[in-house]
């Protein structure tokens, strides 16, 4: 499968144009879209994610890779829908009420998108009802909440309670993160997981999508 390896390598190197061309060629050669996605694009992205996690790559370099990944996905996605392919998973994320901090949440969004997940970013200062609306509208697998202040982290619990009240809690997993958050706090408010940084958030999402509900942490 030389062409798929080619795609993976181009993604790894952050070559947007080369990735696009290689994916087009693969489609033309009749390689199944599912293979292009998993053995090409995602295979390349996985290498990058691992390198980033172990401190061998910087984020700006990963961003370039995400650009290449996106270029490939743009071509492959419509074909996948034709072949009735399931998404890798959909995540709704946001910073909770009263909290304007953006950058940590943005990093998580970037990393997740890079890893091939669908991400819906609700922005900052997101109230509980906005999270509920998004769950009802988007049917995500996971919602991710971020807080940087000790006085806003308390709103995470409110969102979980609102989900329970609406009988949505069993339909979606909840992960949290941010400077004042700890594994303990995640357990306390009955979140499904906690990630200490953006790099490990991707692992957490993968673990949760492959497991039954239990408090996970990476």
């Amino acid at each position: 499968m030389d062409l798929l390896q080619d795609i993976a390598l181009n993604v790894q190197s952050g070559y947007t144009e080369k990735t696009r061309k290689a994916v087009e060629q693969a489609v033309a050669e009749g390689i199944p879209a599912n293979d292009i996605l998993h053995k090409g694009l995602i295979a390349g992205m996985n290498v990058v994610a691992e390198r980033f996690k172990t401190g061998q790559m910087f984020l700006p370099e990963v961003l370039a890779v995400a650009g290449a990944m996106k270029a490939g996905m743009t071509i492959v996605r419509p074909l996948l829908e034709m072949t009735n392919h399931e998404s890798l998973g959909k995540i709704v994320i946001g910073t909770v009420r009263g909290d304007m901090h953006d950058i940590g949440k943005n990093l998580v969004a970037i990393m997740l998108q890079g890893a091939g997940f669908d991400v819906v970013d609700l922005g900052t200062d997101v109230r509980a009802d906005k999270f509920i609306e998004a769950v009802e509208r988007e049917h995500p697998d996971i919602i991710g909440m971020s807080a940087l202040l000790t006085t806003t982290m308390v709103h995470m619990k409110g969102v979980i309670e609102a989900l329970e009240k609406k009988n949505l809690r069993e339909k979606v997993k909840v992960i949290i993160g941010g400077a004042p958050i700890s594994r303990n706090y995640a357990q306390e408010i009955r979140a499904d997981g906690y990630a200490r940084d953006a790099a490990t958030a991707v692992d957490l999402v993968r673990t949760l999508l492959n497991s039954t509900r239990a408090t996970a942490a990476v």
Partner: protein
Amino acid sequence: MRNRFTTAALDSGALLFGTAKFPLTRRGVTIGGGSVIPEINFTLPPMDVEQGSMEEVKKIYLEMIDSVCRRAVELHQREIIVEFELLPEMTLNPVWGEEITALLQRSLEEFLDRDGLQSLLRITPVDIRETSKPPRRREGREVDTLFDAFRRCARAGGDMLSIESTGGKEVTDPSIIAGDLRGIIFGAAILGSADMEYLWEQICSIGKETGSIPAGDTACGIGNTAMILADQGYVPKVFATVVRAVTAVRSLVAYEVGAVGPGKDCGYENAILKAITGFPMSLEGKSAACAHFSAIGNIAGAYADLWSNESVQQVKLLSGMAPVVSMEQLIYDCRLFNAAVNKGSAGDLRDLLVDSDALLDPQAFILRPDVVRSLAKAIVAEREDYGRGVRVAWEAVRLMKDAASHGELLISDREGSWLERMELELNGLPATSMQFVSEETERWSDAFDCTQYLVETHA
């Protein structure tokens, strides 16, 4: 009215803790006049801040101020600075900020009367202009409320006025993540400076009106964001270092429109600003590890007139509450600084602090006194903010390359290649501010609202 610095106050003088060229005295406390004073900051534990919890909130602030002052007295400390950093809710509801300020100042006065503990209170509203999206920085309810918070807190007993303002963050946030130096220069040196000029003219006039001291601003949202991300391995340390150097251009503006220090703790650009302005500065290092980790735990102390813990929540440690732990650590640090001053060996201790860290990390390296002096000179050699930003970035890159090649700075090959990358990027910049601003305004048109900055392309 902005009076641009054209020379560095300390270009040939000593850059040293405890001593500023222009010390500042208020209510019997002198800052930068030959001793380092602890600056303590504390915040709430995880809890809701709302009307219904205000009684509890005040109770906690009272507990915190009382316990840290008590410990200071027990340790024979004669002077402390307290920073009250308003939470968003307390800035959005300025009456709450005002009430807590009054409560803190009342407590400080009691300790003065009863125990002779001298103190000043710094009040730091949060930059709530970010609440609107995109931020409205010159008009609207948030802007009015912000200034209302300043005014009320000043009147309620705030001795010094500060803020960690966020002008330009719409551009610097994505630029940090992308390692985009061009965007940093635009967001920090151009937009940041323009916003600082507007904002600090207002704060200085509130200072005149109320008698409070317009102290200073920090580029926390830019410089520390880059620093923390570098510390986590997300962005190169050499990049975060250049970001820091560029933020000095923007933070300097407060002093060009009337601020007189002490600069706010979390701005490591304060080293450069002290060299330029001669005003006293607050800094934070190892005893602020409760608030953020860093590569500059000792070397930051080289410039401290106030020595801060940045912030700590009211949580219980084995010995007692965390703010009291911070107070004790700051006091011991200051005792050491001041023992050196008293013995005439402050310069020697400063050199030890510098030697501790400078080799190991670029972010520490640029706090070396000789490097600080070079960066200060690079900034005042230019009048325009664009020129300042480019020149100080150049100088930071040059000094790091030079030091790395002489074994005076340890950096990895991966970091080294970013020095090259940044050099290339700087080489590709347009010659004039006007051209740069028009290119960048175009490039970032989706990200920010240019009517909120009114950038002048001619200085």
